[in-house]
């Protein structure tokens, strides 16, 4: 295993791939002090163009914040299982749950291409580069086209509902000089 080291006043990194253990969404085990987690947040603007319906797919809108002092380029996402469901809310504020359309119902809304295995990795059609902390295009707003899926059995209670998608398991990212993606952006994974 290759290990990064922290020196006084500097950030350390490894020259090989890091496989970082996950600890319930908290700071990752074995992570270099020079690498901070990205924050991914659900947002309502821009509004999704493709709306979910039973048997169909819809857009997912996020903002990605990068706290690191250098750009970070995301090339893939790791998804929860295909039985990890979104929770429905009555408005885009995602503050009041929609009765009869929550994760436990279930809502029948999942990430597209999720599998039975948690952490399945899905490459983005185009890499996304989030600017360094304080720089332009950070946070980066992204619409993932048709990357939410609603099963044909979705309950009627989910009509016109706003969904908070299940938490991502992780993302694959590379730090380094790169031109940041202009916000808002459109991207997707298609397999």
């Amino acid at each position, binding site marked *: 295993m290759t290990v990064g080291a922290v020196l006084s006043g500097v950030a350390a990194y490894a020259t090989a791939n890091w496989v970082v253990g996950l600890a319930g969404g908290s700071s990752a085990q074995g992570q270099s002090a020079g690498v901070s987690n990205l924050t*991914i947040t659900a947002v309502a603007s821009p509004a999704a163009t493709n709306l979910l319906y039973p048997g169909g797919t819809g857009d997912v809108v996020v903002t990605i914040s990068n706290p690191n002092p250098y750009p970070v380029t995301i090339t893939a996402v790791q998804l929860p299982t295909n039985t990890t469901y979104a929770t429905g809310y009555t408005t885009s504020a995602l503050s009041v749950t929609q009765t009869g359309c929550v994760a436990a119902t279930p809502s029948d809304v999942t990430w597209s291409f999720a599998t039975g295995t948690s952490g399945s990795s899905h490459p983005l059609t185009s890499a996304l580069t989030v600017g360094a902390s304080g720089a332009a295009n950070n946070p980066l707003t992204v619409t993932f086209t048709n990357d939410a899926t609603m099963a044909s059995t979705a309950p009627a209670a989910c009509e016109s509902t706003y969904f908070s998608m299940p938490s991502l398991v992780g993302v694959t990212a590379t730090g380094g000089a790169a031109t940041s993606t202009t916000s808002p952006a459109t991207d997707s994974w298609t397999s």
Partner: protein
Amino acid sequence: MVVAAVAVGAPPASATAWTVDVAAGGRGQAHARAAPAVPGGVTAVCTATLGTTIKVTWNSATNATSYSVYASTTNASSGFSLYASGIAGTTFTTSPLAAATYWFEVASFTGANWASASSAATASHMVTAATCL
């Protein structure tokens, strides 16, 4: 072991790659359509005077992926029960009907559970043992 260092504020070397966690609650927002619209333009006609089948037609409804036809032998406002479901198109012809007077309504569906309200009832048609009027 390979160890390297970079000054704070400078990006790691381009060869550096890692899988980072996302902070708790990292997720996105999606939005669902409304229920399908109520079908309009619903009509029913006898397929032939000397026959006992009726053809029901309607206009395509926004967001509908299938339709259901309901029939009543009571009156235009009550007694409707499901006659056929899962109809992909906008026409439906009944099987030979028993003697009675019939009214029809149509509802649109998206998937298995998202349904519109039923349409207005069609005009009635009286079916006898061998005719449709």
